[in-house]
């Protein structure tokens, strides 16, 4: 019997082992880099909730550039946040932007590794602060690439962008100046109220300090008055998402079935939309998300009013909207994912 067929020679065994050693040496730093990247992303997530920061950021949406002023503070465990558009007409109240919060960036969970690779990039400098680039690179073309630049000392996010298929940012914000400090825990400050005891918004500081404050124990910043924001706004991003109900399978209401979903996405049910003045029936709302990218699927019976709308395709920065009529229903898909993903979802939604 020819034993050489059964047992590999010592030479080839050594070769294979050598290759394994070389490969493991090569891959180990990558694994560590990934872990460090995820750790820094999760630190950033905490920092966005727990730190006081106030600054100006440049905001790019498609080809449109604007600037915003953001104030986020935590006093006695209560978070307040206010964002004001700086390049629009009107008073500060009318220019206040509802629904925008840096703290809405989700935490990274281990399952996300199945669809994204988290890479630690080079050092960069934003708003005169040194930061580290982290990339969440999708493993398919169903979602956007996400790029962060994070201050490694404080964990503060200084630059964030979604990159489309053309390798250019579809949406981005970047701080041009920022003050970062630790939250105050024991100092109680009264809310600013008007004569009718309504909470009012204080003036935005006209001169925003260009000097960057290193993370030190916070001192009272008299230029920024505390503002109470509505309960709805405080809870809008994270707490209300807990209302979402995970579906055990891809069977939706009224005989609709999502025949397949892109890898990593899961489907949840959101509260149905209440009937509007022109629409008598409820619209079912489903949320499809992989944790970092998400989209909404709306299914509503087709009415005579909707019939004239046609098949809609809208793009606004990272946001895409696609509608299509199907089985006497109008399907609307909205999400910060490429348009092809939305079409894929609509095609896979079938009435049984």
């Amino acid at each position: 019997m020819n034993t050489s067929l059964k047992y590999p020679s010592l030479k080839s065994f050594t070769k294979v082992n050598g290759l394994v050693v070389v490969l493991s040496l090569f891959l180990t730093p990558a694994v560590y880099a990934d872990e460090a990247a995820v750790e820094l992303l999760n630190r950033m997530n905490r920092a966005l909730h727990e730190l006081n920061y106030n600054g100006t950021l440049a905001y790019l949406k498609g080809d449109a550039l604007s600037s915003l002023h953001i104030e986020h503070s935590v006093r006695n465990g209560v978070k307040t946040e206010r964002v004001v558009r700086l390049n629009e007409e009107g008073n500060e109240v009318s220019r206040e932007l509802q629904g925008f919060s840096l703290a809405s960036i989700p935490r990274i969970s281990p399952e996300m590794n199945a669809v994204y690779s988290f890479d630690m990039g080079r050092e960069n400098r934003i708003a005169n602060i040194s930061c580290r680039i982290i990339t969440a690179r999708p493993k398919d073309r169903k979602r956007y690439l996400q790029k962060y630049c994070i201050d490694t000392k404080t964990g503060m996010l200084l630059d964030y962008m979604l990159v489309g298929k053309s390798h250019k940012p579809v949406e981005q914000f970047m701080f041009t100046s920022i003050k970062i400090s630790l939250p105050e825990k024991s100092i109680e400050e009264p809310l600013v109220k008007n004569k009718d005891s309504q909470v009012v918004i204080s003036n935005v500081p006209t001169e925003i300090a260009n000097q960057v404050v290193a993370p030190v124990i916070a001192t009272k910043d008299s230029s920024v008055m505390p503002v109470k924001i509505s309960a709805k706004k405080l809870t809008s991003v994270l707490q209300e998402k807990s209302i979402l109900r995970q579906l055990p399978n891809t069977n939706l209401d009224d005989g609709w079935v999502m025949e397949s979903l892109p890898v990593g996405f899961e489907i949840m049910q959101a509260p149905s939309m209440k009937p509007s003045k022109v629409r008598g029936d409820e619209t079912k709302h489903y949320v499809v998300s992989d944790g970092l990218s998400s989209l909404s699927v709306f299914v509503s019976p087709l009415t005579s009013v909707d019939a004239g709308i046609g098949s809609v395709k809208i793009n606004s920065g990272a946001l895409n909207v696609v509608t299509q009529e199907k089985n006497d229903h109008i399907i609307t898909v909205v999400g910060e994912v490429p348009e092809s993903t939305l079409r894929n979802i609509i095609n896979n939604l079938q009435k049984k």
Partner: protein
Amino acid sequence: MSNSKKESNGVDQQVSLTEHLSALFDDEAGPFEQRRVLDELKGNDKLCKSLSHFALIGETMRSRTSVAVADDNFLAGIHAHIDAEPAYNKVQFEENIISSTNDATNLVAKKQRSWLRPVGGFALAASVAAISVIGIQNYQQADQSTGTIVMTQDVKVVKPSQVATVVEGAASKMNARHEYRQANTHARSFLKRYVDSHMEYASTSTFVPSVRVIAYADYK
């Protein structure tokens, strides 16, 4: 200049080019750097090898599985086939799309071209890959911009003349299959409700929920 100085300059230039190449790979190179590196790749074997190494390293780190290693001549093959191809331009690309809708003519043409497939497979793939680096991204962006609708959550009154300008400008770029419609009050509120609800329950991005509907593409 002494030989040693010349050599050190050559080494410096190579280091700088490798850095530019790395930047290109990380999508951090500007248009000028991109052009320079792509030009340099035509005649610089060392840089070609660096490109292959970067691609291999990146792919291995991302997939963590075995990857196919391309031959060093792969890039040379791409360049050779690009040189052999007729000059690329957008009009030609659009003509190809339009011709694909003429089924009968197209079928005959496809049959006639079928012998080219096995021979030209590599050429086509290589060309597409290279074009995607050089120029097609511009086309895609132009195409995407046709679908771009200027939207904001605060619905604003827009003068009809402005709408006409937007629609006309977009229409000149867009594919003939798309039509642009002016958004009426119902269409605006219809879309706004959905975007609002998405922002409330689903959105994971931190971006400004601003959508201003002036017109939308009807792709039927």
